[in-house]
């Protein structure tokens, strides 16, 4: 687009939206017919561009997040783009601005902002251009979708407190519910690290003194640090340690290898969070007592499906309750008992069931 060309994204997009709403009813009928054929669901072409933005595709979580978006875009026959920030907020925001320009504001964006403050800038840009946005994990506490109706559709996250509590209980069960544990935390200032510690504390408090936290050390999400700290714990506490709680699977793997070096792998259970493959395999080998698998395929697709339902007139997002605008997804607890089932039946995503996996409105604890 040349710089001199007069251009008003707001007006243009509102016209387009009206036209699109009319077309959507017909399109839905076409889709319904198409669904009755056993063909891959390439439904009607849409004029909306769908995009997922995230840190990189070099980690399994974000790679799957992108795939979820792509899967949904295929079901509605929309153009899909992947934007990566490479951990650079500036790049993330300017890529989004460029895409808003290119699509004339007809953009549905599912974004995991690089940093919380980025969310505000992104939401404002999308609203100005007349697009629609869903944010994941990171946003300032005072930024709410309903303050930017209808363009800021929703914010999705996972609640670290109940998941950490559940996985801690799985750890306690693995060693008989009585004894001392040690815990590895994430970077002290990270929200997930704080939430997961809180969940662990809750679980310990509910054992009425049967489980004792011998020591807590932040290993900054780092495998190597977790290894060295666990080695020191073996010296300090010896066989008082009945279990190791790690706030993520990476640190849990570090702890497991330190235990292995001392002949304790499989004897002292470890739990982690994230559901990485190595952790799932360690559960099968009886060395991990459990992990929590997030569902990035679901967040990646649903962050597009909800705004798409709004622009196609299926729902009116401004009339949805707050627990449909800021909500938690469901973590899947994987333990020795459920690991076979988890591997055989990976979580399925029904893009028609918009809030089926939502588990309540987001809580602000600070």
């Amino acid at each position, binding site marked *: 687009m040349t710089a001199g060309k007069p251009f008003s994204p707001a007006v243009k997009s509102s016209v387009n939206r009206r036209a699109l709403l009319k077309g959507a009813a017909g399109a839905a009928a076409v889709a319904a017919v198409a669904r009755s054929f056993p063909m891959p669901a390439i439904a009607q072409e849409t004029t909306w561009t769908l995009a997922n933005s995230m840190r*990189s*595709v*070099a*980690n*399994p979580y*974000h*790679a799957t997040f992108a795939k979820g978006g792509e899967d949904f875009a295929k079901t509605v026959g929309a153009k899909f783009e992947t934007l990566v920030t490479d951990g650079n907020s500036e790049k993330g925001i300017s890529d989004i601005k460029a895409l808003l320009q290119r699509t004339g504001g007809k953009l549905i964006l599912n974004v995991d902002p690089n940093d919380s403050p980025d969310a505000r800038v992104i939401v404002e840009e999308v609203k100005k251009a007349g697009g629609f946005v869903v944010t994941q994990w990171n946003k300032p506490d005072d930024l709410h979708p309903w303050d930017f109706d209808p363009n800021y559709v929703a914010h999705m996250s996972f609640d670290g407190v109940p998941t950490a509590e559940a996985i801690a209980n799985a750890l306690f069960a693995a060693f008989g519910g009585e004894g001392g544990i040690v815990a590895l*935390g994430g970077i*002290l200032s990270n929200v997930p690290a704080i939430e997961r510690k809180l969940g662990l504390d809750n679980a310990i408090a509910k054992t009425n003194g049967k489980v004792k936290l011998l*020591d*807590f*050390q*932040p290993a900054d999400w*780092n*495998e*190597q*640090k977790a*290894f*060295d*700290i666990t*080695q*020191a*714990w*073996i*010296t*300090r506490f*010896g066989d008082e340690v009945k279990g190791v709680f790690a706030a993520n699977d990476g640190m849990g*793997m*570090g702890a497991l*290898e330190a235990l*292995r*070096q*001392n002949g304790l792998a499989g004897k002292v259970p470890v739990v982690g969070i994230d559901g*990485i*493959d*190595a952790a799932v*395999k360690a559960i099968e080998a009886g060395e991990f007592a459990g992990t929590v698998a997030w569902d990035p395929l679901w967040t990646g697709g649903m962050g597009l499906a909800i705004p798409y339902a709004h622009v196609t007139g299926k729902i009116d997002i401004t009339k949805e309750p707050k627990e449909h605008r800021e909500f938690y997804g469901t973590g899947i607890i994987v333990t020795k008992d459920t690991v076979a089932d988890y591997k055989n039946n990976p979580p399925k995503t029904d893009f028609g069931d918009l809030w089926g996996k939502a588990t309540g409105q987001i809580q602000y604890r600070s």
Partner: protein
Amino acid sequence: MDPGLRRDDGLMGDHDLIGRNRLKTAALNGGALAQWRKWAPLAVLLALCILISLFNGNFLTIGNFIRLLNSAAIPLVLCMGATFIILMGSIDLSVEGIVALTAVMVSLLVTNDISPYAIGLFAVPLAVIAGGVMGLLNGLLHVKLKTPSFMTTLGVGFAGVGIAMAVLGGDTVRISDQTFRFLSLGRPLGIPMAVWIAIASVAIAFIIQERTRLGRWLYAIGTDEMTARHAGIPIERTRILIFTVAGLFYGLGGVLSAAQFGQGHALISQGRLFTTITAVVVGGTALSGGVGSVLNSVIGVMIVVVLANGLVLMGVEPYVQQGVQGLLIIAAVALALDRSRLEVVK
């Protein structure tokens, strides 16, 4: 004062533990102080050990000693390479990149869950050589393009992590080759195999430093490159060779990392660079070059490892630990560094 005259002892190589310029230092500071400074890193290490064992008797057990050595093994191997570079007055920031790349490479070559290769221990020399090639690249870029080692090694390091990421696309390779894992889990004579390998690395590095021309030359270059050039030392070739040798050590570090965790991924080396440089400097090797020894770095690694272990053993609050660690590192460097020759501190 003519720096050539003042520092020409770099060519003669009286460089046991610290004071290579003892005569000069003695004249300035008095012999006692110079003698003390030479042993300062060792004294710091002993003081730390005594302090920690007062708080927790378990520190002085054989079990903990073996665990400490186990934690020290990989940093030791990496420090052998980094010490040479720093002695030469350069810096090497490619540690993490080369370790990541070689760790991923070796884990893809032994029996694993992603690639079909299963060449067992033959993968080890291949990965070490790959590290050497990366080091050679460091040296060539640094010398031939006349770019500061700070930038070239940073670039090569990023490239290393980048290649590891591209190869795996964010995945983790799981190693199922138990012979390979013996490199970390084996316990000949009750001591972890990785520790034996680290001891061998120190011995090789010490021989290079003391018994080869390469070792002499790198001190000469680090002390005063102009003088070394006048003395006919092949500066460029030495620099390239030293970077290559360092790369070989990092490659070995990558192999040991993969063996330790039984897996390879692009972030396996996270945090290694900082520990490595810290250990070298805490051991008393000057960042300005020419002063220090691989033996200093052995003490430096032990200080860093004992400190991390001790803070957990003493039950120091996590919030306080990083502060204590920072202060102790500054104290160790302040005690160990011979500043009498420094005209400017950068």
